[in-house]
């Protein structure tokens, strides 16, 4: 239970960063932290104490019980999607920097057009 709460705290740190920072790179970093907390949460849910990794031996049966493989499959795709969306956000940030000369979202708001 404490692990779930710690994971939620990590998520809250990310939320705090997204809501209070005014720098675009800091916002991207906070979004990444939120993504990490969600990956960790899903991996924590699927864990069974005393179980093995979901990779069987060549005799196709597992002696010990196996960790739930379904959340791991979901997280595996989500990690690569996170990388792609992060790259996309960073390219948008760098184009905004070229246009306005700053990462400050307050200034970008004011300089319309």
């Amino acid at each position, binding site marked *: 239970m404490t692990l779930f709460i710690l994971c939620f705290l990590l998520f809250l*740190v990310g939320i705090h960063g997204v809501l209070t920072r005014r720098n675009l790179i800091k916002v991207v970093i906070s979004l990444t932290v939120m993504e990490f907390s969600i990956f960790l949460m899903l991996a924590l849910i699927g864990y069974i104490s005393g179980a093995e990794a979901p990779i069987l031996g060549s005799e196709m049966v597992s002696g010990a019980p196996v960790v739930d493989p379904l959340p791991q499959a979901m997280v595996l795709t989500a990690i*690569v999607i996170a990388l792609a969306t992060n790259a996309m956000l960073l390219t948008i940030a760098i184009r905004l920097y070229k246009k306005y000369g*700053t990462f400050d979202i307050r200034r970008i708001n004011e300089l319309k057009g």
Partner: protein
Amino acid sequence: MEVMLSIIICFMIIAAIVAIHARDLLSAIIAQGFVGYGLVICFLILKAPDLAIVQIVVETITLIIMVAVVLDSSRLELNVSFDRRKGGTTAVTFIFIIVLLVYFNRAISGLSKFGEHTLRMSEAYVTDAASQTGSLNLVTGILWDFRGYDTLGEATVLFTAAIGVLTILRLTGKK
């Protein structure tokens, strides 16, 4: 086991706070790398080697791209003290956190305790995946057989993101 994970997650929280409050963007990015590599260790402890391999490579590439972006532009954090709507932002943040806490409480009450997860839907996957697909790695078997649609959608998102990056970064039009 649980104590070790708690210590690592505490370090990750501290690193995340450092990353958000750092004065220099380069040190913020390095602190964010600490969070990512801590996540790798957590995955290894949680018996998820597939995720650990993917995360360690993806984190490295993310750091390279972030450092490239920051070194191209400015490294300095802005002066955050000036804000006209500071009171409003704080109030909105508190309301947001309270709503999130309520939903987190409701969500966590339906979960079993850590380490005592019962296989419900994955029971069939664990018993049948190897004999039906012939893949000894159960994660790959699920990814490409039972859950093929999800993976196809993921490939489409990656493709779209690459096209979007090409479109945004093109300065001169192509004849």
